[in-house]
């Protein structure tokens, strides 16, 4: 049994809209109807759909134009479209497929064929959605690597990817852990360099200097230093 999907039925003929809607609802899907191309485009902009059943022959804009606009829109081009029409013209079918339609359903439609095509579309869409999500999350890991280079990495930026149970999730978790360890080490080292001045115990250093410079050997050396370095004057 396929999971429930949201479908948009677009047809200027109220009988056809109703028949298609009923059949889809009987299959367990949520249905919204549009009676022309403009309504359909507005509905698609307003909410997400898993599949669109689109009549070819409608008043302007017709099914071809709606399909073309949908495929031009980066946010909508991945929504699968099944063209529905009484036309049995092969050229029409070819044109729609070439324009990006997923499938073609002739009128009058056969409910069994409708179910098969809807299910096929939904399966492909879900796989596509998973692939898109995967690629998006790979992108997060790639951006995280760039952020580490720039010193702008935030470990929580990978929380969503790290929650995955697959190899990508494991990669994100290892990356997060290593980045946190490096960050902690860097912070410790930076603290150390910041403490450079205050970590010199001036009094103790002065005592050590005195212990050396108060020796007879040193004082003798200090007296002779100009003789020992004759070139300083000679040059």
């Amino acid at each position, binding site marked *: 049994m396929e999971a429930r999907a949201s479908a948009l039925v677009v047809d200027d003929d109220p009988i056809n809209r109703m028949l298609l809607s009923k059949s889809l609802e009987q299959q367990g899907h949520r249905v919204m109807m549009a009676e022309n191309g403009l309504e359909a485009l507005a509905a698609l902009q307003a909410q997400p759909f898993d599949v669109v059943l689109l009549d070819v022959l409608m008043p302007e804009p017709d099914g071809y134009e709606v399909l073309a606009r949908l495929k031009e829109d980066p946010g909508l081009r991945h929504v699968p479209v099944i063209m529905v029409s009484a036309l049995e013209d092969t050229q029409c079918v070819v044109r729609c497929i070439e324009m990006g339609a997923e499938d073609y359903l002739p009128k009058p439609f056969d409910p069994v064929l409708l179910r098969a095509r809807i299910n096929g579309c939904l399966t492909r869409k879900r796989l596509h959605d998973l692939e898109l999500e995967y690629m998006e999350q790979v992108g997060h890991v790639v951006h995280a690597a760039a952020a580490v280079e720039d010193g702008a990495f935030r470990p929580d930026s990978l929380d969503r990817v790290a929650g995955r149970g697959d190899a990508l999730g494991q990669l994100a978790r290892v990356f997060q852990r290593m980045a946190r360890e490096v960050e902690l080490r860097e912070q410790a*080292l*930076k603290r150390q360099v910041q403490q450079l*001045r205050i*970590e010199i115990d001036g009094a103790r250093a002065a005592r050590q200097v005195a212990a*050396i*410079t108060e020796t007879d050997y040193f004082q003798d050396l200090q007296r*002779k230093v100009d003789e*020992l370095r004759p*070139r*300083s004057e000679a040059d």
Partner: protein
Amino acid sequence: MAPILSIHSFRGGTGKSNLAANVATLLAAEGRRIGVVDADIQSPGIHVLFGMSQDAMRRSLNDYLWGRCPIGDAAHDVTSSLDEGLAGRVFLVPSSINPSDIARVMQEGYDVSLLNTGVRHLIKELGLDTLIIDTHPGLNEETLLSIAICDALVIVMRPDQQDYEGTSVAVSVARKLRVPRMVLVVNKTPTVFDVAEVKERVERAYGCEVAAVLPHADELMVLSSGGVFVTRYPAHPVTALYKQVASCLTA
């Protein structure tokens, strides 16, 4: 008289010998005749960087200090181990790596004033343009003499707590010996440190110019151990830093 450069550090393991060998090579590459004296008699090591084996060490600084030979006999021309095409020459006076010689130095010491006489003879005899003394770490009689006779002193330090105080003692002592020119080299600096910040903080803390801030990297440790770095990796960024030190000392 050719200038004497002493390379010193308060603690061991700062990369003093590496710096001495690399600066000597860079100066020789400019056509100078350079002498290098390994005055770290208790723990000699610079000969390794010049590719010198124990068998090749005919005479050493120890032989001169114990009256067995003139210092010139202990000088070895190591130029060919660096680069046959080097415009200048590098002469090394190594310290003995014979354990009994090291033990004798530890037990009996030696007349440190001979070191001063020796380096002057060496400069004249070999016609040196610059003489570099790789000193023993810390502040004992021979290192104090090395500081007292030098025209320029390089104190090598690591940016860690154990070096800060000792370096400040060495800087203060060198000032009392009126060293004409003194610079610090910060070596083995973790790469996460901001180089400009380290330079600025060290210069402010010691009131002394920092000639270079050299990085610490495992890669460098491996590369540095097998010879003189600047001849093997002339295009490496660290070679540019060694050049910075060399030009700072000859400016």
